[in-house]
Each structure stands twice: as structure tokens, then as C-alpha cells.
């Protein structure tokens, strides 16, 4: 699409799934009464002091370990100073230091792997993960007289994950964001819901004329809140930068936002306007000393991560790499499949059912998979019933629909509706002979070798049996009678 080669790095902000805020005991709760969950601490009252939330630190360490990072057992807090009405204390407590001695984020030097379209995996470096507090919210449309301030979000714990500029296309950027979202979900560190804003992404991008040329001038595109916006914004920016370079116009380092409607990146501020945040160590919090034993304990209790789970699904359930990929994108789906597969005689067929039937149905449901009435064990049993030839694949679809609708077990539905497959050759032969008797002319054609008419007979017989006849046996018997 372009003769230039993009270089991309991401900054991903995610909200940690703690019950309380980063530096006080107030509840983290959205969609509640304005200023309900506030105290002297998160309101920036005079004299209040921050006390770091242990759970948040544990989550950040867990995330660091899941992203293969080194954990800093002497992490430091710092203040980022700026004035804005949604920032009560006039500074944000974060973990950034201007000089190496003062820069001690909780984790650094990690990596993740993404799976490219050609089947290869690619490693992308994680520069650092630092913890910080969120600001509050300004409400501008409540009254004409002025803006209003809601401090519920003040002090909500966040982690910022910074990647190395290892990403080479907008598509790779999406894979990286997907992988990190996946890891956030698997580790339980964050709900990582982009729609709710508890995960968002900034993209740093520059282009260069060849793959080994020095990096170009970069722009940072802020607050990309979906995979498609990330991809579109990066593509748009590549186009913009390419046109500028083609026209020999110099690029300026700047911060931008993405206008979804116009599909354009818009400059928010240039490098000259960059704020001096006057970072310095937060004097109210001691260094965050973490016992190495504690870090090891967190490492040992890390849950199975997406890559490992995908591999296990392939190895122990003998499903395809593609199916394993689809089934592990979302933690909930992977757990659903995992539970069902251990009880299922044919996990391959089960995987098909989940991917092509269940996930399609779930797509339009509000609560996602958790709102489905069907249990994993019941779907496993449904597949087992097909395997046993108790029911046909066709009947299974009817049963599946009923299971979704009512949450009843497949056995109950089959019994209630009398859907058990008829596999008794004697019973089937009687049905076949009945249908032949009613269609003598066609049967003679079939006998004389017109194979295409066989389908007609199978169809008729299936209809006569209410779909319950075992199609395999129907076929055998038809052939047998034809040879008589």
C-alpha cells in the first residue's frame, strides 16, 4: 500500500480489577451516584496521604510476570505535576523517573509473542509496566452555568504497558493489543473491556524508506478505544506521513487524536507545546519493597496463559491450530471449551459446535457466554449422543436450539420429544419398503443405475421417520433392497 515501512510501538492503559482504589480504601465503582466513592485522600484534601493498595501491586506484578518482565523489587512512586480540574491533588502519582536512579517502574524488559498470518510467531518487546492513578471525570452537559466534577474515578488503579517499537504494521499492532488484552483477561488483572474504557491504547508511529533505515519522526495517537480504531488510525497516519514525505515536507513530532467520523488523525499538540511534568519521587510513599519470595509465589500461582492453553488444546484434545486459536481468544470461551472437552468423546466435533454454532448465537447476546443457559457438560453430552449415534447430526441441531432456549439437558429434550435416532434395521427396512411401495417408478429408475435419485429416497424416508432414522442405515438398506 505504501513504499514506506512503518515502525509502531504501543502504550496500553488498563484498569486493574481491584475492589478499592490505588491509594485509599474507596470502592472502585462506575455507573453510580456522582462523588459517592470519595474520601479526603482521593479528593486531594489538605493533609491526606496515599497508602499503596497491596492487591493492586500484586496484580501489577502478576501482569509483569505474565508478560515475561523483570520485576523491580524496589519500585518507586513519583509525582507527575500538572493542573487540571479532574486531578484533585494537582499531580498524578505514577512510576516515572527522569533519570535512571529515579525510574523504577514495577516491571520492565519483557516480551510477548504474536502469531502472524503466515503461521510464524513474532516476539514483541515490552519496555516497561508502571502503575498509576486515574483522574476523575468532568461533566460538561449537566448545567449551562458550568462544568461539574465527579471524583468517583479519582485514584482508580491503572497499569500502563509500553511496548518496544517492534511492530511493523497496523495489523501486527492489532495482534499485539489482542494478545495483551487476552493476557489481562487470563490473569484476572483487568477486565480489559475496551468498550467500558477500562482498557485503551495510544499508538506511536513513524515510517521509513527501508527496513534498515533509521526511525522517522513519530506521532503519538492518543486514546484509541477499539481494535478497528487502532488499525484505521495507524493506517490513516501512515498514509498521511507517506504523502508528506513524498512531497518532501518535513514531519513534526506531535501528539494526535483519531477522528473516527472523518477517518483522520488530528494534531492535539506539537512537541514545543509538550508540558513539563516536573516528575519527582513521591515523598509520601516509601519505596515499594517486594520480597523476592512474594514475587516467586505470584509466579507460581500464575494461571495458565493463552499461549500455553492453546498448545494444550491442540495436544490433548487433538483440535486444529485454527480452532485452538479461536477457542482461546477469550478466556471465558476457553474455559467453557476446556470444561466441555474433558467430558466429550470427540473434542474436534465439540470445537466445531462451539465455533460455528454456539459462538454465533452468543455474538448477539448481551451477557455473552455467561448468559447462555446451556452448560458445557450438556453440550459435551450432545456431541456424545451424536457419537453414540443416539441422535443424528440433524436432530442434534434441533436439540441444540432447544438447549439454548430452555437450558434443559439433551437427554431430557430427546426423551420429551421422542427424538432418539432409529437405528433398528428391521424398523428402518419397514419404512424403506413403505416408501418404495409408494414410489415404484422412481425406484425402478434407481435400480437401473440412476444414482442421483437416491437422495430423493433418503429424504422421503427421513421425512417419514420424522428425521429420526439413522441415515447411514437408511442408505445401506436402500442399496440392499436395490440389489434384491
Amino acid at each position, binding site marked *: 500500500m505504501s513504499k514506506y515501512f512503518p515502525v509502531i510501538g504501543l502504550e496500553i492503559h488498563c484498569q486493574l480489577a481491584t475492589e478499592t482504589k490505588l491509594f485509599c480504601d474507596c470502592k472502585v465503582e462506575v455507573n453510580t451516584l456522582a462523588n459517592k466513592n470519595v474520601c*479526603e485522600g482521593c*479528593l*486531594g*484534601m*489538605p*493533609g*491526606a*496521604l*496515599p*497508602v*499503596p493498595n497491596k492487591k493492586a501491586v500484586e496484580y501489577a506484578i502478576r501482569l509483569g510476570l505474565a508478560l515475561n518482565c523483570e520485576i523491580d523489587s524496589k519500585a518507586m512512586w513519583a*509525582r507527575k*505535576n500538572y*493542573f487540571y*480540574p479532574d486531578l*484533585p*491533588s*494537582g*499531580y498524578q502519582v505514577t512510576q516515572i523517573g*527522569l*533519570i535512571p536512579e529515579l525510574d523504577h517502574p514495577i516491571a520492565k524488559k519483557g516480551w510477548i509473542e504474536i502469531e502472524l498470518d503466515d503461521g510464524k510467531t513474532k516476539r514483541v518487546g515490552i519496555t516497561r509496566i508502571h502503575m498509576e492513578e486515574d483522574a476523575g471525570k468532568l461533566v460538561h452537559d449537566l448545567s449551562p452555568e458550568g462544568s461539574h*466534577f465527579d471524583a468517583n474515578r479519582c485514584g482508580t488503579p491503572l497499569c500502563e504497558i509500553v511496548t518496544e517499537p517492534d511492530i511493523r504494521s497496523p495489523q501486527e499492532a492489532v495482534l499485539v493489543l489482542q494478545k495483551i488484552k487476552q493476557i489481562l483477561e487470563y490473569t484476572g488483572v483487568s477486565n480489559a473491556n475496551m468498550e467500558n474504557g477500562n482498557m485503551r491504547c495510544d499508538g506511536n508511529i513513524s515510517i521509513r524508506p527501508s527496513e534498515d533505515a533509521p526511525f522517522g519522526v513519530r506521532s503519538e495517537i492518543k486514546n484509541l478505544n477499539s481494535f478497528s480504531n487502532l488499525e484505521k488510525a495507524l493506517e490513516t497516519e501512515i498514509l498521511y506521513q507517506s504523502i508528506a514525505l513524498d512531497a518532501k515536507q518535513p514531519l513534526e513530532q506531535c501528539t494526535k487524536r483519531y477522528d473516527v467520523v472523518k477517518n483522520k488523525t488530528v494534531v492535539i499538540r506539537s512537541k514545543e507545546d509538550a508540558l*513539563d511534568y*516536573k*516528575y*519527582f519521587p513521591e*515523598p*509520601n*510513599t*516509601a519505596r515499594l519493597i517486594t520480597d523476592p519470595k512474594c514475587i516467586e509465589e505470584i509466579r507460581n500461582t500464575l494461571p495458565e496463559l493463552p499461549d500455553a492453553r492453546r498448545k494444550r488444546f491442540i495436544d490433548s484434545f487433538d483440535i486444529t491450530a485454527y480452532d485452538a486459536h479461536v477457542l482461546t481468544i477469550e478466556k471465558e470461551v476457553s474455559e467453557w471449551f476446556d470444561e466441555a472437552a474433558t467430558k466429550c468423546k470427540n473434542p474436534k466435533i465439540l470445537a466445531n459446535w462451539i465455533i460455528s454454532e454456539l459462538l454465533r448465537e452468543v455474538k448477539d447476546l448481551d451477557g455473552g457466554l455467561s448468559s447462555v443457559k446451556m452448560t458445557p457438560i450438556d453440550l459435551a453430552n450432545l456431541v456424545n449422543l451424536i457419537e453414540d449415534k443416539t441422535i443424528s447430526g440433524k436432530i442434534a441441531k434441533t436439540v441444540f436450539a432447544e438447549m439454548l432456549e430452555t437450558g434443559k439437558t439433551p437427554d431430557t429434550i430427546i426423551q420429551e420429544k421422542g427424538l432418539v435416532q432409529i437405528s433398528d434395521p428391521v424398523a428402518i427396512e419397514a419404512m424403506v419398503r413403505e416408501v418404495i411401495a409408494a414410489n415404484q417408478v422412481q425406484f425402478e429408475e434407481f435400480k437401473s443405475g440412476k444414482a442421483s435419485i437416491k437422495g430423493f429416497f433418503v429424504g422421503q424416508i427421513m421425512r417419514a421417520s420424522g428425521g429420526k432414522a439413522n441415515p447411514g442405515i437408511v442408505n445401506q438398506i436402500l442399496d440392499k433392497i436395490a440389489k434384491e
Partner: protein
Amino acid sequence: MYNLESLKSQLNQNASTSVQLIDSSLQKLEENKDLNAFISVLTDEAKAQALESDNRRQKAALHSEIDGIPIAIKDNLCLQCSKTTAASKMLENFVSPYTATAVQKLKDAGAIIIGKTNMDEFAMGVSSGSSYFGPVKNPLDTSKDPGGSSGGSAVAVAAKIVPLALGSDTCGSVRQPAAQTGIVGFKPSYGRVSRYGLIALASSLDQIGFFTHTVRDAATALSIVAGLDPKDNTTIDAKSDFSEKLGESLEGKKIGVPKEYFGKELDPQFKTQIEATIDLLQKNGATIQEVSLPHFSYAMPCYQVISTAEASSNLSRYDGVRYTYRSSEAKNLNDLYSKTRGEAFGEGVKHRILLGSYVLGADAFENYFIQAQKMRTLISEDFDKAFETCDVLLNATTPKAPLAIGESSSFTESDIYTVSASLAGLPAISIPCAKVGNSPVGLHLTGNYLQEAELLSIASACESIIQYQA
């Protein structure tokens, strides 16, 4: 005799009731109104609490040995439902929704807060003259300032309105006014007392301290207030009985005298008095040893960088958006900030915010802030070395007598002898040791980190040898 111990015995011997003590405190406060030591007086609350205390006494259900005793607190300590102004127009109408941990501990012990004392605005100053509510006067000479920034608390104790007052000390703001009003001023180790609810000046230096008439009273106060606070991440979990060593003699105690503290800035008459005191202590068994704190002269510049840096950030919250003063002239957001802060902060405060913002700026950070941090470490190491051979260090609390009201500037040198202990986080105490004319001379003793019991023991021994007459 007016002190914590004597009021305790009055109550214990039923010579007085808490109601009577509070009444007499409030009366004393009224008589000394011209000293301008208080920003707010909690008459009704104090009287009601005194009644409750007397009831407890009748039922033998006292909360502690200081139950029913009147005290005062500096107006930068938060007290729920009371105005907490830090002597600034910015917080003129701020009513705190919560109570500082140290204050709560005193309240839980049954102490009765009769009022909140005047101070330099946001504790920035050495004279208590920068208060939005007018300057505090020195009871020993009302034309002079009482020192600062906790001048109101010093005066409340010196004028015998209360036997105990809380102040805050960032580079001498308790010890220096205590010296200038002839009483005891004690700053514990950094982290010994919770800062939760203390309006911050420089968070890495601020520490709550005590004004009393005796060293024993200071030990009593520290025992009540000290301890780990889950709300202050910088408090220390080290239990100690601060009175256990009181009464020990000076025999065998090693007192170091840092030679750098006797330079040309020290008033010759003050110097004479301090040297006479050293002789006296030596005659009473103390071993006197000259020591060196070679980085002494860098302490004040180092302090000015660190304290203004931290203060500039700490004071950012006063922005006109929520609970502070708000300019009525603001037309837009930047206006709201600049006009609010322009109108409500005093000169000394603005001065420090500008300086602090400068030293934290990207261009100056490494040359100022980082250098100051390195210097702070060197200053601490000077003390570590001195304490290898000494139990305490001795010097004058202030180099000279207090100035006339209004003469003190934003950066007067009267805290050059107290600042190092703050930078090193060490406990230090000022006790009166002599007089030069009308002005008391403060004897400043610095103890090793968390060695308050030893420091108080030596200070108490000095106190009884010196027999200072107010």
C-alpha cells in the same frame, strides 16, 4: 508551676476539675488576645468535653493520665468539623471533614483542644508574621516575633494558656519558636509521629512536634502520639517507652559539640551563654567532645531546594476548584488558577512555589533537585559519623535573639542550626538555657535516629542542671 504534670496532679488530687482548667485556659487566652496566638477558639466544644472528662473522672473511667487537660494545636492540623486554615486566605473557610491521626490520639486520650493556633502561612516562615490573620507577638516582648512557623503554639504554652501544644517542624518550626519564647520544643524522628492530617509543607521533612514547659511533658506527649499509622506510609513501627530513661544523670554521657555551629552568625552573647552551659554540663559529669559536621554550610541551600520543590507540588491542590478560596474574577480555567492563587497566597508562599517549580523543571532538575538529594545524603552521613562517638549533639537553637515584628524576611537565617536534623530525619529538642537581655537562649540537642528516649533523658538531665528561670 504550670505544666502538664502539675495540672495532672491538680486533677488527681481533686484540687481542680477539668471544667475549671478549661475555664481558666479560656480566660488566659482572652487576657492574651493581643498576642494573636489563636486563629480559632473552640469554647463550646472544649467546655462540653471538660464536663464529659469530669464525669469520667467521677466514674474512674479516665481515658489516660492527661484526660481533661487543655491543649492547643497548630492550625495546619486537621480537626473534623473545625476550620483548618494553615493561616492562609486560601483555606480561610475550609472546614476539615476529618481529624489528623496525632490529634485524634490526643482526643482519644481525653485531652481537650481549646483552639487552633496561629502560624506562618502554610508553615512557611520563621516569625509567624506571614499569617493571613496577622502576626503573632512574643509574650516576653510584644514588640518581637515569637519565631515560627509554629509561633501561636509556642505562645500558647509560653503564656501558660495551655501546658501542651502541637506544632509542626520542617526545618525548625517547633524548636526555633520554643527557643525564642523560652520553653521546650521537641521534634521526634521523621516517621515517629503520623503526618496524616498535617497540611503538608515539605512531606519528606515535615514532622509534628510538641511545645511544653518540661522535657518530661514532651516525653508524655510523644508516648501518646507516636506509633505506626496505617494511613501514613512513612511512619515507623518501633515501640519505645520515651520516659523510661528520664531521671538518669549525665554521668558518662557523651555530648558532641559540632564546631561548625559556632561561626560568625552566632551572636557573641549567645555564644558565651552556650559555652557557659557546656562547662556546666561538663562539671556535672558529661563528656564533651568537639565533632565536625562538614556539610553544615550546604544544609540551608539543600533544604531550600527540597522543601520548595515538594511544597510547590503539595500546594498545587489549592486551585479554586473544590474547597478553597475561589477568585470571583475568573473568566476561564487558566484565570481560575492564576487569579485564585494570585489573590489567596501570600508573598512567601508564592516565592517558594516559584522556586520549587523552577528546581523541578526539566532544565534545572539535575542541577538542583538531584544535587540537593545527594547533599542530603552527605549531611545524614555527617551525623552517622558523629553518632559513632556521641550520644547527642549540642548547639544553640538559634544564632540570635528574635527580630522585631515585621523585620523577618521570608528566608531569615534563624533556622540554620535546626535544619540539618530535619534533613537527616533525626529527633531534636530545644530547651531554654539562659537569657540574653529579655531573650531566652535555646539549647539544641540532636539525638540519633529513633533514639528519642536517650535524647529526652539527656535533655531532662540538662534541664535540671540548668534550672532555667523564666
